[in-house]
């Protein structure tokens, strides 16, 4: 849809109320026992299993892809009564250079490769370069592209500029699934988070995503609440369901459950689906595996009992 500046500028967010909601959300909704196990398995299917390090290699990515195909030990799944075929990561997320390796390793699994792009993480490369990067990643086999916005546009109130930037990314992505990383930790205020998300959705984002994982502050629950409400209002206005991705800082099974409760409470059951909610993470999976094993055996588990991702 075209840029609606009134909707963007009129956004009001009360920080303390968002913090209060975040602090009480999880304590209002205790998910225990069998439901916890079921919810954690659901969380596994929402994970964009991610490696974004300077020392990433083909071998490292192949191992991660193996983990994405089979994120939870099959004996545990058998005990939990869930077929292994139903439990895989949502995607594998890598830098452009590793897209071919990931594509090859995931062939036949149905798991898409996601490429971070557009001068990730700062996003300050020349615009043409950023567009070219998207096209090359898509050509190399990325079905999903995680783009980053120019945070300066938000901080300077340059909403038209931001809109044009994201719309340009949209064009370059073509049919690829576009997740727009807002870098919420660098936007200064929650109102800015809401405004940036709204512009990104108007410009054609399939997903809005909290963070690159490289900022000092990444996916916090209050920013998640604000994004979820922006998504909800956009759906109300257009009928379009935009997805939400939390990335950066989610390390424990408890974090994953808190985010699922947030999504269920603020967005509803339709978003409790990998097509509309993702978690970008690397170490989170290992903690979930331990909790699942505890559920099966009744004993607290250890990291080394689960295959490395």
């Amino acid at each position, binding site marked *: 849809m075209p840029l609606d500046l009134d909707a963007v500028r009129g956004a*009001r*967010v*009360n*920080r*303390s*109320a*968002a*913090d*209060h*909601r975040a602090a*009480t959300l999880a*304590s*209002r*909704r*205790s*998910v*225990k*026992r*069998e*439901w*916890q*196990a*079921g*919810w954690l*398995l*659901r969380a596994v299917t929402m994970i964009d299993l991610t490696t974004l390090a300077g020392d990433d290699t083909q071998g490292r990515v192949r191992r991660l892809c193996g983990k994405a195909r089979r994120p939870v030990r099959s004996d545990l799944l058998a*005990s*939990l*009564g*869930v077929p292994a075929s*139903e439990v895989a990561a949502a995607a594998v997320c890598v830098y452009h250079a590793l897209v071919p390796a990931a594509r090859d390793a995931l062939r036949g699994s149905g798991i898409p490769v996601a490429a971070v792009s557009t001068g990730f993480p700062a996003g300050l490369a020349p615009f043409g370069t950023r567009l070219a990067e998207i096209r090359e990643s898509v050509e190399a086999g990325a079905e999903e592209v995680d783009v980053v916005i120019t945070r300066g546009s938000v901080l300077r109130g340059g909403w038209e500029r931001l809109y044009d930037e994201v719309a340009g990314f949209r064009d370059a992505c073509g049919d690829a699934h576009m997740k727009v990383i807002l870098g919420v930790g660098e936007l*200064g*205020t*929650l*109102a800015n988070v809401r405004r940036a998300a709204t512009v990104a959705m108007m410009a054609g984002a399939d997903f809005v995503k909290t963070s690159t994982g490289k900022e000092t502050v990444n996916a916090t629950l209050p920013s998640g609440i604000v994004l979820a*409400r922006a998504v909800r209002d956009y759906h109300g206005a257009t009928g379009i369901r935009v997805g939400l991705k939390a990335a950066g800082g989610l390390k424990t099974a408890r974090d994953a459950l808190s985010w*699922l409760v947030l999504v*269920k*409470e603020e967005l509803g*059951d339709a978003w*409790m689906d990998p097509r509309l909610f993702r978690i970008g993470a690397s170490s989170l999976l290992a903690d979930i595996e331990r909790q699942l094993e505890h*559920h099966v055996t009744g004993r607290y588990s250890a990291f080394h009992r689960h295959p490395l991702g």
Partner: protein
Amino acid sequence: MDETLPPVPRTAGPENKAALVREAFASPDYGPAPESDQFAGEWLRDGRRDFGHFIGGRWTGGNGAKRKTRCPADGRLLATFRHGTGDDVDRATAAARAALPAWQELGGHGRARHLYRLARQLQKRSRLFAVVESLDNGKPVRESRDLDIPLAARHFHHHAGWAQLLASEFPGYERVGAVGQIIPWNFPLLMLAWKVAPALAAGCTVVLKPAEYTPLTALLFAEVADETGLPPGVLNVVTGDGATGAALVRHPDIAKVAFTGSTEVGRDIRRATAGTGKHLSLELGGKSPFVVFDSADLDAAVEGVVDGVWFNQGQVCCAGSRLLVQESVEDEMHDRLRARMERIRVGHPLDKAIDMGALVDRVQMDRVRGYLEAGRADGAAIWQPETPVPEDGFFMPPTLCTGAPASSSIVTEEIFGPVLVSLTFRTPAEAVALANDTRYGLAASVWTEDLSLALDVAPAIKAGTVWVNCTNRFDAASGFGGYRESGFGREGGREGMWEYLKPIARGARTGGAADPAGHVAAPAEGGPPDPASRPRRRIDHPRDRIDRTRKLWIGGVQKRPDGGCSLTVADPAGTPVAEVPRGNRKDVRNAVEAAAGARARWGGGSGHLRAQILYFVAENLAARADEFAAELTRGTGADEAGAEAEVEAAVQSLFTFAAWADKHDGRVHSTPFRNVTFAMNEPVGTVAVRCADRTPLAGVAGPIAAALSQGNVAVVVLPERFPVPGLDFVQVMETSDIPAGAVNVLSGIHREVMPTLAAHDDVDQVWDFVADELSGDAERLSAGNLKRVWVDREGAVDWLAPSARQGDLLLRKGTRVKNIWVPYGV
């Protein structure tokens, strides 16, 4: 109902665990998340526990009937307890009285240790307390776990601090004595903490009566206090119902009554304690406004409504049950609210994933339903979400009422259930007018991102607590309490400590209450003099003076009395010296109306302006000092030195309170949230002052100065026998820029004017410096609008020898604390 332990929701056995996991994986529903009731069950011996009262450190059955308490969510029997009789109350009060000296002697530090220990005990046994509370009351265990119990512990921690600091922070004050405390069923342990902690910190001993629906946590608390060494008699718990409470209220050895509950019972207690000299604090009902401006974060406001009116099933005295939403965002607000209401989960209180549990009793549920029917009959649309609600137990879904006429009982009355009534406004001024259009004044919540608007509206709302962009925040460091018919007194913070303290009696300090001015004593015993029986001698007018016609002063104008009657005033020897107007009930009416007209402007003006005017009054009085001294000598029989001293004291009082006009600062409380909690000293409003004969000038000018200084307006009833100096003082005020109506002066027979004044619904406070039977009547008559009545029975105020402490006391009497919570953050 079944007497054995019925099912709390439990998860399935191992055989179908896997099926459940698969189901939970397939559909994103919440499962049951039961809190274990094992420890509570053990403590209650699965319902077989039979509690007595806790009196003088011992458990005693007493002679009252047995009662049972049940869980409102499933009807299970929790325990048996006793209905406390007058005998039980006698014994408990005697125990409390007997424990007073030792508890006092223990000193602040010694008491601080006990309070600290109680705080720690609440933390150490928090789970047992939380589960027992939820079983007994029906509230979600999440709330008792996360709010009730931690806040109760916080109150004991905070007040351990006040015990420690008592001597240095409250010099010249002492504990009021043995206190009777009656608490409600909606926050049983938290209300216990709000009452018991400050009382014990101040050095009082306590007889506590918990509500008959929810006696258990008070009994558990008594058990813990006993086990951990609280001295016997310091805390006594007598269980029972209203009759037990009434016995406690009426007990002659109870020095103070503290009550939280309904306004109707509050009125009864006001009447029952009238004339007894008992101190009283009342925390009563409310119909608190929840004001949403178009500049609000509406999603945040919707969550606020959830916290405001569906917290504790709406059984909260300060529930934000009246939604006032700006017309421009009405539809959007309602849409968002309805969508949110669909997600509210109602279920067993021990399920940790629910938002609302059961109402406390069938009686309460029927009451709430009755209101809904009345609302529907009045034309309101009643909406409830599809949320599943358990069929057994006293459960109700969250409810939204729209389109109700302003006169409907669902708009005006406290429902005390999960019912929100929504109204609209157009402008900030209309929002304030609607917010204040209620007999109550407990709390309010204001939602806007516009700071200027918030800080304009918050002080304008007549309520003891205003939450900006938040709601139902409580903390021990901040006082809580009402305006208007929501009661008086504060609980929490420095302001709450005063409720359990009184000035150390003057006699005790000076060794005798001599009258330094050498006046004749106060009026003759046995009531006011009957003018008819006065000597009917001629007034001895000096031939060279023109007759003086003294009038009432109402609305800035000297008025002849409505009744067209005068009284002849005589000097102590019985010689008539003047004729003064005999005010009647219509004069009272006119004076109160004039005061109401001046209230907003005088109260809203700056302290600097008020100071200038009071200094000006002092200046003009000083200029006529000789004349006033002569009048005092002639009319009241004072000797020359005494008369001069009284004029000087009046000038001094005017200076003192002029000085205080811009210095009685509020505070910023240290509450543990990211917010500024500022405690503002607001004027009480219209103060009716009853002046005593012993200080016919200083005792008139002083209270006027004290009242005006803090932004109050006054209706002054002059000393009955010696009204002349006060009437002459009118001339001084008249020429000193006091705005019309800010002070109104009546003379006459107290018994003819005071009852009208004390009963008047637009008078906010009575100061009575006479302290006789009429004062008790004033207290009784004040029950209508529950105005504050201060009768200076202890002689704390001496207008001839003002002390620093006395000034402080009057400043506090002339103001009430409003706490405004303003969270911040970007």
